[in-house]
């Protein structure tokens, strides 16, 4: 009966509007203003009215079209099922695109810079995917390892004049060492305790970096970090006497783009290395043990697998890739400060892994592109950018709680009849 349906919808909408009114009045309706006599207040009831109106009619419309009480997102289209092999084709095409991208005529400096940022997050996502996606260990302080890598490179390069290529592995190993030191005492804890301890650890690193001025430069950070060179040939208009620069080496016109494009390929290679490593590890005993541990730790113990070692290896390897990415970040920016390593970074990286679909390498790429590009596209609305970002995170989770790519490829197959 249409009458009752409309009445119900009206009731639903009324309730929603009432809640919206209660939500809106205190924070939207009044705005605190700072005056000379302390705080003043300003009213904005027109905004409240707009908001409540939108909620009322929105809910009314939804209730009418979808029937009442339906989940708001239950009716969104499901992801289409792709035939097997699509993933591989898409991955191949994406890789080609990634390789060709900076050479395309449309690619300007801004685009390549953004692409570098996306790739850094893809790499971080892949690194954290080992810990969270495969081993199922909830790490909320991944940014700590990123910071360790960045500071290791910056300090070694500045104080000991070591080259990027030497520092890169050191930064990775150092981050892995941190992972082990942290992991050893805490990996025995159950999931959520681990989450809070890693979160705390991330904050501790940041606080130490912020306050230990002699060591890390405190809030001012470290600046003029050496930029990478092309295996000994610097990217500069003029090399030092007797030194060949990159453009001289190849007989090119000097262009500042060279370095950016080089950085792009560098992070692409680093990220692909992470990916190759992870895919390879998945097919090895340790990788299978990671996944088994995520599925059932007790069964693992009954099968003679040492859970601590397996967890520690996941933690250390994930940390190592975070360290690599950190070293790259430092050399790319030329400047680092604790501000770049706040909790929100950890949250974004974790969101990339979970939104992508835990354990899915392709999902990480899609989610990283989305989470980095969307705020970038919303630049003009910078005020609302983070608000929309938070909202988008919630909406995607509601839409696809298992992540964008939920498919899992087996690590071994039994061929029939062989």
């Amino acid at each position, binding site marked *: 009966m249409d009458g009752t349906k409309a009445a119900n919808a009206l009731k639903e909408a009324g309730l929603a509007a009432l809640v919206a009114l209660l939500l809106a009045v205190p924070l939207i309706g009044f705005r605190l203003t700072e005056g000379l006599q302390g705080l003043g207040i300003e009213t904005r009831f027109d905004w409240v009215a707009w908001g409540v109106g939108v909620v009322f009619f929105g809910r009314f419309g939804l209730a009418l079209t979808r029937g009442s009480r339906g989940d708001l997102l239950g009716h969104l289209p499901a992801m289409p099922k792709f035939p097997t092999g699509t993933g591989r084709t898409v991955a191949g095409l994406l890789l080609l695109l990634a390789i060709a991208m900076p050479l395309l005529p449309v690619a300007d400096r801004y685009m390549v810079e953004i692409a570098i940022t996306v790739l850094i997050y893809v790499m971080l996502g892949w690194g954290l995917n080992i810990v969270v996606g495969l081993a199922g260990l909830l790490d909320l302080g991944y940014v700590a390892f990123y910071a360790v890598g960045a500071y290791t490179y910056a300090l070694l390069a500045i104080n000991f004049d070591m080259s990027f290529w030497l520092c890169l592995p050191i930064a990775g190993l150092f981050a892995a060492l941190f992972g082990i030191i942290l992991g050893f005492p805490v990996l025995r804890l159950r999931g959520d305790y681990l989450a809070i301890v890693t979160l705390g650890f991330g904050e501790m690193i940041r606080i130490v970096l912020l306050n230990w001025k002699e060591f890390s430069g405190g809030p001012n950070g470290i600046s003029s970090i050496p930029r990478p060179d092309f295996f000994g040939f610097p990217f500069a208009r003029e090399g030092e006497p007797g030194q060949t620069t990159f453009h001289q080496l190849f007989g090119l016109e000097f262009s500042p783009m060279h370095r950016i494009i080089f950085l792009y390929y560098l992070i692409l290679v680093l990220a692909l290395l992470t990916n190759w490593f992870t895919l*390879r590890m998945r097919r090895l*005993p340790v990788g299978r043990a990671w996944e088994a541990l995520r599925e059932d730790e007790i*069964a693992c*113990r009954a*099968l*003679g*697998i040492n859970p601590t070692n397996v967890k520690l290896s996941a933690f250390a390897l994930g940390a190592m890739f975070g360290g690599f990415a950190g070293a790259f970040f430092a050399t790319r920016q030329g400047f680092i400060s604790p501000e770049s390593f706040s909790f929100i970074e950890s949250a974004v990286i974790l969101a990339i892994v979970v939104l992508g679909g835990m354990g899915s390498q392709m999902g990480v790429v899609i989610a990283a592109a989305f989470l980095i590009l969307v705020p970038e596209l919303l630049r003009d609305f910078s005020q609302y950018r983070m608000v929309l970002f938070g909202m988008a995170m919630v909406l995607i989770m509601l839409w696809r709680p298992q992540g964008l790519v939920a498919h*899992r490829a087996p690590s*071994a197959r*039994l061929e029939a009849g062989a």
Partner: protein
Amino acid sequence: MSLLTVEHLTIRFGGLVAVDDVSFAAADRKITAIIGPNGAGKTTVFNCLTGFYKPDVGRMMLSKDGQEWLLERMEGFRISQQAGVARTFQNIRLFPKMTVLENLLVAQHNVLQAASGFSIAGLLGLNSYRTAERAAIELARHWLDRVGMVHLANDEAGSLPYGAQRRLEIARAMCTGPRLLCLDEPAAGLNPAESAALAALVRRIRDEDGVAILLIEHDMSVVMEISDRIVVLDHGRKIAEGTPDQVRDDPEVIRAYLGAAEDEVAS
């Protein structure tokens, strides 16, 4: 010669004595069943043997070929790794999102891990590791064949029917290459045909693979049919021990079971 000797095993949870001074032995290449009403402490004994609980008092010794392992002194995962005690769980614990084959490969983790040179040889794709992996897959295929599941090898373990999951768990335990296999209610939830097949499977493991089996089971037809020896627990105490025929006629055992039955009716 007994493979496993348990002496004066006692476990308390707070004030409750879950297992009270239980001693028994399990012979090599024999099936020893532990039976008793619900709450008798059977699974607790298993959890002790496999290192999930530490006993308050008692000794659990596994000995074979001149080697000895004191289980109560070993860390949980080493009991399977070194002493070779494998187990299944009352409420199946597979790795549900992994395939059947992967489940069996995880069970061979320690062998493969050594062959992969702690992943380095494996990462480089060295031949030695490839050979080891092929051998592991062969062993998995062998056990899949034994439990009649070769055609399911690439399916997700969590999507299998219940009976197949039970069999897979046994196959997985066997892939660790155990000396002693502990089965915790393997026939629970199976239909009579499946139970019979299970009994045959367990018997073949004893006869062909030379593995001792410790069995917790409520299905008396299975227990009486395949057990070589039976230990009866009630309220954490051992009340009887002997061959199936001896236990069947033991007045103490009958009282425990009938008493339990009355309790169940009353509640």
